[in-house]
């Protein structure tokens, strides 16, 4: 799960990380109202759940009320990488002496939360990581001790020569780590962290991602969650015990198991087709699950053929076949379907399906080729 910059700033504020004051606006009118009491430089920032806002023209400086209104008129309604801008943040523009990067991520290799800092702030850190990895300092935090005072201070000293400033930054690192733990983050970034001419250290922009597996214990995050249409489909699927990701192709896939589902998509591509989705129905022959899965697949109007790929393990193929027949009876899909069954009781399953007249095969390669062929008819 992701949140907007303004939401990240609210969380930072709550934990005492200094951020410039700002007003969230949903319309040009609201920007006019907000600017009524402001007579200094502001920055008008698009609030969308995607990176690269600056490059897309979604972030503009404004010296006056008129300029701010003009900026808001341009930004509101703008499309940034497929996201329509519905909100802007009007934030005090800080005087910037220097910009830094601060980030926390859960690192698979060290199996710990890693603090990353860099004096190269304000730019895309992935770029820095590729071109000048030595400019990023990394520290793996021991989960048993947390980020200790001296550790935070020593890391801050890599950015700030003045120990007074380093202490301010160290305090921000520790607060960010506390936020990370409290919210089950998978990423928490301040980019940039800035030093002002009057020696303040401020968080100017923030980005946070959260662990979907931990949302059950994060009611405050669930309450502010925003989802688009595709994500809503994915969430609905999850509630039904299915894992669904929409893609751009025309061959719908229904598979049991995540790895096999990925391999199925790959296979379709390998034989020159285009998968319409990733869909893992898990290990069950429950007809209702198959019905739910088919409904999700068929709600994607690009789907022209369906490939059902089941490896029978503990769930036997003959049970899966019976479930499929029940589901097909309920839905009566109009697009061609090819079914591949393999594993436990595959022969029995295929015999049951024979009555339906559906094309059936035993290998993944055959299934992919057949589905591609059928999609072209």
């Amino acid at each position, binding site marked *: 799960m992701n949140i907007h910059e303004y939401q990240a700033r609210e969380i930072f504020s709550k934990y005492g990380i200094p951020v410039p004051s700002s007003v969230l606006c949903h319309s040009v009118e609201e920007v006019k109202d907000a600017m009524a009491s402001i007579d200094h430089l502001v920055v008008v920032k698009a609030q969308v759940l995607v990176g690269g806002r600056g490059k897309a023209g979604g972030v503009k400086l404004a010296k006056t009320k008129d300029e701010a209104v003009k900026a808001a008129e341009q930004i509101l309604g703008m499309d940034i990488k497929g996201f329509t801008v519905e909100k802007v943040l009007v934030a005090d523009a800080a005087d910037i002496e220097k910009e830094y990067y601060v980030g926390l991520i*859960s690192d*698979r*290799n060290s*199996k*710990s*939360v890693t603090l990353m800092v860099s004096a190269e702030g304000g730019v895309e850190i*992935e770029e820095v*990581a590729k071109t000048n990895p030595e400019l990023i300092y990394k520290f793996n935090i*021991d*989960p*048993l001790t947390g980020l200790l005072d001296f550790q935070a201070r020593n890391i801050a000293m890599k950015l700030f020569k003045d120990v007074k400033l380093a202490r301010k930054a160290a305090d921000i690192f520790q607060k960010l780590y506390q936020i990370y*733990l409290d919210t*089950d983050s*998978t990423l928490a970034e301040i980019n940039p962290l800035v030093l002002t001419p009057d020696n303040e250290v401020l968080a100017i922009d923030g980005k946070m991602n959260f*662990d*979907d*597996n*931990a949302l*059950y*214990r994060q009611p405050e995050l669930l309450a502010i969650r925003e989802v688009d249409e595709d994500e809503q489909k994915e969430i609905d699927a999850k509630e039904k015990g299915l*894992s669904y*990701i929409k*893609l751009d192709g025309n061959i719908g896939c229904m*598979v*049991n*198991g*995540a*790895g*096999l*589902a*990925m*391999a199925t*998509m*790959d*296979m*379709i*591509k*390998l034989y020159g087709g285009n*998968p319409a989705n*990733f869909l*893992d129905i898990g*290990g069950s022959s429950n007809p209702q699950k198959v019905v739910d899965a088919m409904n999700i697949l068929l709600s994607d109007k690009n789907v022209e053929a369906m490939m059902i790929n089941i*490896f*029978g*393990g*503990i769930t036997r193929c003959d049970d899966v076949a019976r479930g499929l027949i029940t589901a097909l009876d309920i839905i009566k899909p109009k697009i061609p379907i090819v079914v591949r069954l*393999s*594993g*436990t009781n595959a022969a029995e399953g295929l015999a049951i399906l024979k009555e339906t007249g559906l094309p059936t095969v035993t*290998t*993944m*390669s055959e299934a992919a080729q057949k589905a591609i062929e059928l999609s072209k008819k």
Partner: protein
Amino acid sequence: MSILVNKDTKLVVQGITGRDGQFHAGRMKAYGTNVVAGTSPGKGGTTVDGIPVFDTVEEAVQATGANASIIFVPAPFAADAILEASYAGVDLVICISEGVPILDMIRVTPIIKRNDTKLIGPNCPGLITPDEALIGISPAMIFKKGNIGLMSRSGTLTYEVVNMLTQNDMGQSTVVGIGGDPVAGLYYIDLLEMYENDPETEAIVLIGEIGGDAEEQAAEYIAKHVTKPVVSFIAGQTAPPGKRMGHAGAIISAGSGTAEDKIKAFNKAGVPVAKEPSEIPGLLKEKMAEASA
């Protein structure tokens, strides 16, 4: 020989009175796995399928000498269950539970390391040494005793490949599902070392998927330390960046963790990567013939 588990493994099933725990405890026992105990707080003194149930893992270990544990508890309680087994002195813990928060696993990691506990999973199908011990949820009938070691981040894809191996009369020494989560227990390199040292394993299959760089690290390790033939397959070549493909760990983030990078790394290490799972038996035969030539 084999790795990690064999006929001498004594297994305790944590969460044995739950639906999955009960079902799989029965299956494992029927396979011949030495299932010595189960746990379920408050249900101590009862039995499931003839298996004695204890309130705590500590009691189960004391009474039965259990040295491995398998966990079927719901995800919010999985980390605690891993720690309970670790503190009870169990050597090997297999966590089947799916959906465990990443920070829970980060907190668990240094503690089990200190207690010298090996962990497999979470979010994994477990492992099997055919004809000796099935510890997990894999369909037993597709396996066959033999000399191919196999490890994988995915369940059904493993079954798919194992089935092909068995059909080609290529049995397996030990098959390990390491799980699809970003922060997990034993990983490729740990297992590669074990397979390399296992006299019964003659060749190794590594089934990877997108996300992270464990496959790249494994490739580097193979080039330096593994003398046995290794063949690989990588799932997720067509997965788009930023999307989590079912497994929490299967996500391409900021241009890293792509299938392309992983395939490149394996090829550089002399490990052939199958274009589709059905190529694996053939590639293995070639590599094994080369090795014995």
